[in-house]
């Protein structure tokens, strides 16, 4: 067992865990952050995407011990005081989700994409989301949602999310 201490969605947590435990398992099983989900076992689908120290990671591809001392942001911490993050709003507005299983990862990746490139072309959005699979939407409205967020969301709030995580 190894003791790790980190911040998840702004709250300090500390646990004794097996060294082999993945970050996504830690978030779901120890911290109760079940908004972050597991869609595959080969790190292809991106459903488990969260931010670690301000950057998107597939949390099935990171050991929990690697997050020791770090700051993790999940889908559950995005809305502040009941106000949705602009990318969350954009996904709802553009019908960028159906079953919603890929959505947490898709939104976290989209935020990272926009933080790095606040005004992407459609092609840049498509390539930027290549690591996140969706089976419902055909991506059409997901791409539209990210473009919408780039256009309507204040880039301040998009960029500041990573820093405040």
């Amino acid at each position, binding site marked *: 067992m190894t003791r790790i201490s980190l911040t998840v969605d702004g709250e300090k947590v500390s646990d004794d865990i*097996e060294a082999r435990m993945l970050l996504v*398992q830690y978030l*779901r099983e120890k911290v109760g*952050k*079940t*908004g*972050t*989900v*597991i*869609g*595959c*076992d*080969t790190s*292809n*689908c991106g*459903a488990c995407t969260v931010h670690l120290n301000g950057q998107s990671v597939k949390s099935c591809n990171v050991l929990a011990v690697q997050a020791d001392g770090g700051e993790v942001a*999940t*889908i*559950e911490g*995005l*809305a502040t005081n009941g106000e*949705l993050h602009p990318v*969350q709003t954009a*996904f*709802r*507005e553009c*019908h960028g*989700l*159906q*079953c*919603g*299983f*890929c*959505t*947490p990862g898709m*939104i976290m990746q989209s935020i990272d994409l926009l933080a790095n490139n606040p005004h992407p072309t*459609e092609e840049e*959005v*498509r*390539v930027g*989301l*290549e*690591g*996140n*699979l*969706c*089976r*419902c*939407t*055909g*991506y*059409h*409205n*997901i*791409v*539209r949602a990210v473009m919408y967020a780039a256009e309507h969301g204040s880039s301040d709030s998009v960029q500041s999310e990573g820093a405040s995580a």
Partner: protein
Amino acid sequence: MTATQERPADVQAEIGRDRRRKEDQRLITGRTRWTDNLQLNGMLHLAMVRSPFPHATITNIETSAAKDTTNVVAVLTGKDFGEELGVCINAWPITPDQKTPAHSPMPADRVAFAGEIVAVVVARTAAEARDAAELVEVDYEELPAALELKAAAAADENGGAIAHPDLGTNKSALWVFDSGEAGTGGDVEEAIASARTDGIVIEREYRQQRLIPAFMEPRSVVVDPTGEQLTMWSATQIPHILRFALAATTGVPESKIRVIAPDVGGGFGGKLQATPEEWITWAVARRLGKPVKYTETRSESLISAHHGRDQWQKLTLAAQKDGTVTGLKVELLADLGAYVALVGGGVPVLGAFMFNSIYKFPAYHFACQTVLTNKTWTDAYRGAGRPEATFAIERIMDELAVEVGVDPLEVREKNWIKHEEFPFTTVAGLEYDTGNYEAATERAKEMFGYDDLRAEQKRRREANDPVQLGIGISTFTEMCGLAPSRVLGSLDYGAGGWESATIRMLATGKVEVVTGSSAHGQGHETAWSQIVADRLGVAFEDIEVLHGDTQVSAKGLDTYGSRSLTVGGEALVRAADKVIEKARPVAAHMLEASVDDLEFTGGRFSVRGTDQGVAIGEIATAVFAAHDLPDGMEPSLDSEATYDPVNFSFPHGTHLCAIEVDTETGALKIRKYVCCDDIGTIINPLIVAGQIHGGLVQGIAQALWEEAVYDENGTLVSGSFVDYLLPTAADTINFDIDHTTSPSTTNTLGTKGVGEAGTIASTPAVVNAVVDAIRHFGVTDIQMPCTPERVWKAVNGGTHGGTEDTEGAAMPHFDEAEPGNSSTEGAGA
């Protein structure tokens, strides 16, 4: 206390409005209830031990090492369970003499596909269960495995392997429809014979490769045996059917079973199943008296959740020299895999009525042989039978156009049902209620810029451009809205096709809508609210839609076959109308008026010719108080309706796809995709667009990317998301979609189904485009998926190129070939 529900008559109608979805708030904030999220006190976790062999006798299972592991509670095999394990059922034996292998959720003596469960480990955590599963030693004696579909079908003649030796054959059932015998048309053999002497006969064989539904949420099941009822939570499309099947096969009274489908992450037919995993979890929980959970890994999902398609289709089309069709003969081989699944052989039968599609064939014959093999069992995958039929007919109509020497749209128009001919009884015996193929095609052509693209194609061809342009057409229809119970009965399906709805008028004026449909991404909470808001004249926001729990929604037949709106939506309308009729005498009493003088508009009963009125919410409050109701009146407005559809629903549309093919590399690029669908009345255009987009990509993925591939050992080599190629955002494009509307005449709202339309239509549009781009190289077909390798081989090999089976070897992820050695394979194809 009463929230006002009065809605001015001039407010925007909800039906047709692009409401943002009610579901989204919880889904975009992570406030979700997936089955795997569930934690109960004392909950134990399961891991499955699965066979690596496609066909083998189990000679011994050594469980002691696993049992001795800390925190392992039990290790159980098929032998440890008796009848309490129940059986996996086939609800649709398609013929009386169908050969149906016994299907135990966990066989004790013989496995029939690689991935079948032979033991289950129960431990305090999922990780401990998985660790211990590695310690279970299973001894197998391998048996010859029936793997390839055609070889398995011919095993009776060639002495090949038999998937279930006790059955003595791999042939499960032969299902036949003949228009001559049914009295719905002529004799197809006569039509073919006549065309051979003085017309056109086109014979083609098409391959429907094996696909995997690959819903994003892996299946998960929790069973809690504590308390009076046994409760199962499952990532399923069919909580009601599961409850019935559990009762029917495990001996637990139906009234003691509660099944809950909480948030479910996609299904596409893949969660329309009664699974071994559910039955084993059920049995373990009952045996141990503790809550247990099983969640599959993605790799387990790909090898053991049912697959789809997997057919060989032989078509013979007869026509006059001018392209007028005179007959169609269809002979199918359908791979059931190792067992006859819940719907199983019924999937190709659903296609039996659709090969004739929108065309006026005077004679039609369909025969489908279902075949057992030692591969993962197959069942419904989005479209289920209808994509296969649509693919084959739309491919061969292109071939007919080539033979006649006309534009493929022209040969279609010559043969399709004209809009003034509806309702139209087809050669397969169905009555299409409405449609307008001319209008949808005209609109699609206009959006596509059809003539300009044809001109560009001609230019590129004449210039011998290395990048050729192909235009693919699919003028599809389908039958959905499953289904009239009488028809299902006549086809020997094990249940009916009705749907149920209940509307509860709460004392505070809010409305609860209970539906028997079970959404898993479709947006029923939103669309159903829109329907009820319009019908009752209450606010969209005041309506709560409840579903997916058999204790809340006691009656239902769940969600599949694009049935929820056309069947469940009609039940909703009828329940709402009953509420209004119950409220009417109360309104008359409250207004001191005669019932005959009342009219109901905008959620309000008013006395004709006066300004007196009362809102339905106020009536609900008055009924709750019950202080002053008409004599003898039951104090309730709540109403239930169960609706059995009178016909299927027949959406249709015209899909046009332009693809650029690099003839030097075989690379494909989708340049443009437009479609104009007629799905009747649209409740929510935003949700409809989403259904179309997602459907299109699943159909396009069959054409270009996806295939479940087995090697010669019966191992699924596309058994992870590394090897099973789901499209990404970078592979796809934006779509141009539009609609024409011929409202259905078989339901009040005029709706048709939309859930499967995109998938059914798009596959042939794409393959027709690919073939069209390189037909001048002598190419007449390319087997799906149309990989660059197959396209390149087709271009370089002419007519015979590009039809080989996919090799049963995993693609190397890293190229280890010596420099200069890598290009030898395939060059001579």
